[in-house]
């Protein structure tokens, strides 16, 4: 991994680091909103890979199209998940994911 020319490898490594940090967040956090932030980091790492492979491979546009899809689906997921978090908070007065063990209306 040369320091001189920034290439595809730099971006893939950076994306792996970003994914790992997102995974750490998802695994260690008990706050549901924080878990959601970890998921956003993981999706970002995936989108970064898409764009990097698109940029350094024949200048194809496909990767960027899929990055836009990732962003859109992340937005939909965040909206629904935050509505659920709000609903759970109203019911339990807490969003600690280890304490939600009952189902109720």
């Amino acid at each position, binding site marked *: 991994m040369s320091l001189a020319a920034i290439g595809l490898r730099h971006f893939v490594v950076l994306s*792996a680091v970003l994914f790992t940090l997102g995974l750490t967040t998802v695994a*260690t956090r008990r706050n549901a909103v924080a878990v959601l932030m970890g998921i956003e980091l993981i999706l970002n790492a995936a989108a970064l890979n898409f764009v990097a492979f698109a940029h350094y491979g024949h200048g194809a546009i496909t990767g960027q199209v899929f990055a836009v899809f990732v962003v859109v689906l992340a937005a939909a997921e965040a909206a629904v998940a935050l*509505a659920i978090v709000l609903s759970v908070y109203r019911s339990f007065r807490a969003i600690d994911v280890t304490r939600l063990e009952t189902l109720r209306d």
Partner: protein
Amino acid sequence: MPGLETLVFYGLAALTVGGAAGVAFSRNILRAAFLLLGALTGTAGLYFFMGADFVGVTQILIYVGGIAVLLLFAVLLTSRIGDVRVSNRALGYGTALPIVGLVGTFLVVAATRAAWRQTEAVAAPTTARIGDAFLREYLLPFELVSIVLLMALVGAMVVARRAVRDAGVAAATAAGVSGAASEPAAELAPSRSATS
């Protein structure tokens, strides 16, 4: 003497990784949300670095302007401001970190050792080509994603509206905290005034 390109890349990478590390390890959930803003902005900068202008602008508009602000709202609505730290204890480092470290090491080693086939990067405006791709090869996914967005929007409103209605009942019986908290929640469910 590293070139300007190298400096810009490592600056943006430091912003991204620093923000992500803050999200992963900060004890304060509000600080984590703000650091997520930094990580998302850094990623947008990396998109610009790779000449992906449309994706970069989309990232700033939707992630930084929309999702991160939504997350901030959720943090403020679901944490008692005085004790943002309480629900944020990170347990399980003992079991999580070895697994995550193993996965991360594997990914980084694989990324550095693999023989990536890399062609000469071309920098050209992408917006017109992306629009073309959306309306030709990816027309069906494009239309499907619009339906997914609509369903997510309606579903989020339904779920959040029930939460607000429950909070209204709770506020009638127990005055004070929950009633005050349900007011900002109404902003997240804009359909409430239209349907009720």
